[in-house]
Every structure is written in structure tokens, then in C-alpha cells.
């Protein structure tokens, strides 16, 4: 059953435009997304790639997916495709789906991430790693908030360890 979902909200002192730019730009994502570079066609039906850092040991592939909804500065929905291990690939009937929701609130912005249509296997029980949807997103989003508020992202080890 692919009905596992992960939701994460944070509040950032920034503008919807700056947050959107950081979320959709590869030059920004390499700073807060552990070296991963996003390339995105900002239109429905456009492709999205999330390229792992050069020379990394990641086997997750470039997450090639499709943009389902694109409302600049407000909402982005895309499909999330990663290279599964064979036993997980056998269970997966379709890609999972990521939604970014941006809501202006005066001098700050609420950013809500929804990752749905997941398998239980996509979640990681061990909290001491960045592997797993539930561990990866909080680290990436925390680093994004630091980048937007202080000019500096949080550097994490890129291979999932501490």
C-alpha cells in the first residue's frame, strides 16, 4: 500500500519569491540540499532532476520526475523517482509525489512540504542518519531556512552519517 505520507512545516523570515527561487535553483540547492543540484522546467509537464553531487556514493539516481502543478511563489507539485533496491522496486506501483506550499504571513513565510504516495520502506527507523524521507527532509529544510535567514546553509556530511 502506498499511502504513507510525510508532512513538515516551517516558518522562515523571507519572501515567497526568495523561497521559490531557492527551491527551484540548482545554484541554491547545492548549498542546502547536501550538494544535490535541482534542475526544473517550471511548467506543468516539465521535467525535474535532482542530481547527486559529482563523485558521491549515492545510488538514488537523479530523481527524474514530472512537474504536476506549478504556481510560482505559491505551489509546486512533482513526482519523485528514485532508484529503488530490487525488493522495494517490486512493491512500488508508481512514483511518490512531493508538494511545496508557500504561504505569505506578514514578514515571514510558511513553507509546508508534503511527500505522499510513499511506501513504509521509504521511512527510516534509525534517527541517526539522513537516509529515509523522514530524516532527509528535516535536514534539507533546516539548512534552507538557515541559508535564507543567515546567508549560510548548514553543512551536513554528504553520505548520510553524522
Amino acid at each position: 500500500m502506498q499511502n504513507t505520507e510525510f508532512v513538515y512545516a516551517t516558518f522562515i523570515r523571507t519572501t515567497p519569491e526568495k523561497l521559490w527561487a531557492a527551491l527551484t535553483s540548482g545554484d541554491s540547492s547545492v548549498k542546502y540540499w547536501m550538494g544535490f543540484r535541482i534542475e526544473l522546467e517550471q511548467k506543468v509537464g516539465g521535467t525535474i532532476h535532482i542530481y547527486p553531487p559529482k563523485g558521491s556514493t549515492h545510488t538514488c539516481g537523479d530523481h527524474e520526475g514530472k512537474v504536476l502543478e506549478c504556481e510560482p511563489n505559491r505551489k509546486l507539485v512533482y513526482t519523485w523517482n528514485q532508484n529503488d533496491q530490487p525488493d522495494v522496486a517490486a512493491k512500488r506501483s508508481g512514483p511518490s509525489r512531493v508538494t511545496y506550499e508557500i504561504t505569505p504571513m506578514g514578514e515571514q513565510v510558511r513553507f509546508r512540504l508534503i511527500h505522499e504516495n510513499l511506501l513504509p520502506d521509504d521511512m527510516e527507523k534509525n534517527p541517526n542518519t539522513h537516509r529515509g524521507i523522514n530524516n532527509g527532509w528535516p535536514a534539507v529544510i533546516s539548512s534552507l531556512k538557515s541559508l535564507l535567514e543567515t546567508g549560510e546553509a548548514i553543512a551536513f556530511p554528504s553520505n548520510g552519517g553524522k
Partner: protein
Amino acid sequence: MEKPKFVYATYIRTTPKKLWQALTDPAFTRQWWFGTYFKTDWKPGSPWELIYPDGTITDTGEILEATPPRRLVLKWRNEFRPELKAEGYSRCTIEIEKTRGSAKLTVIHAMEGKGTKFIAAVSDGWPKILSNIKSLLETGEPLAKQKL
């Protein structure tokens, strides 16, 4: 059926000691928690109260574990809203870990009973509160002084 639970992790560019202080010292807590603070001596077995700026006691409980600056476990019940108070006690675990470049703060808030309204309420509140702590510790200013 698993009991209702809220889990949230955030990484803050600070030290575990500063983060512990932000959470437990009223002079700091008031800065990011909209003027609210914990009134307690933080000793295991002691009671605690969460006090609003106008003196209203909004939540109460007991300190179950306190290991500065790493771990805090609180028995927690809302006093302010009758439908939340009726759901009874929850258990709130706050863990602070030093990681490379930051401190990781994890909040796990779980009901002891089956009620879901309290967990829904804290699921809405914690991200705002924790975002405020992060902004205060990283930039010197919280996001908001007034409740959103």
C-alpha cells in the same frame, strides 16, 4: 492502532548548551515563545506550569526526566481548552544532539490515551515555536513576538 504521535526534527546552528538554555531559562523562553515560559525547577518529579504573559496557566505536568543539555521528558496536559484537557496526559520528549555544524533538536509528543485533538493542536504549534527558536538562536531575533 498506534497511539497518536507528533515527531519533528530541526537542525539549528548553535550548541546543545545554548539550545537547552533557550528551552529552560524563562528569560530566553519568553523571547521566542510569545512571552510564555515554563515555571519549574526542572528536577525529575517536580511539577511544571506553562504560563502566558497575562499569567494564565495554559499547560501543566511533571518533569519525568531532565538530563541537561541532552534530554527532557515531560508529562503534559493542556489546561486551557476543555476538549484538550479531557484527552488527558501526553508525554513530550525533547532530545538535543550535537551534530557536525549544528545541534539537532527532536520533539516527540505522544498521547497516553487515544485522543487526537491535542496532538493535532501541538502539531500545529510546535513548528511555529521551533521555527522561532531557530531564528532567535541563528539571527538574534525571533520570527514573531506575537502569537501568529
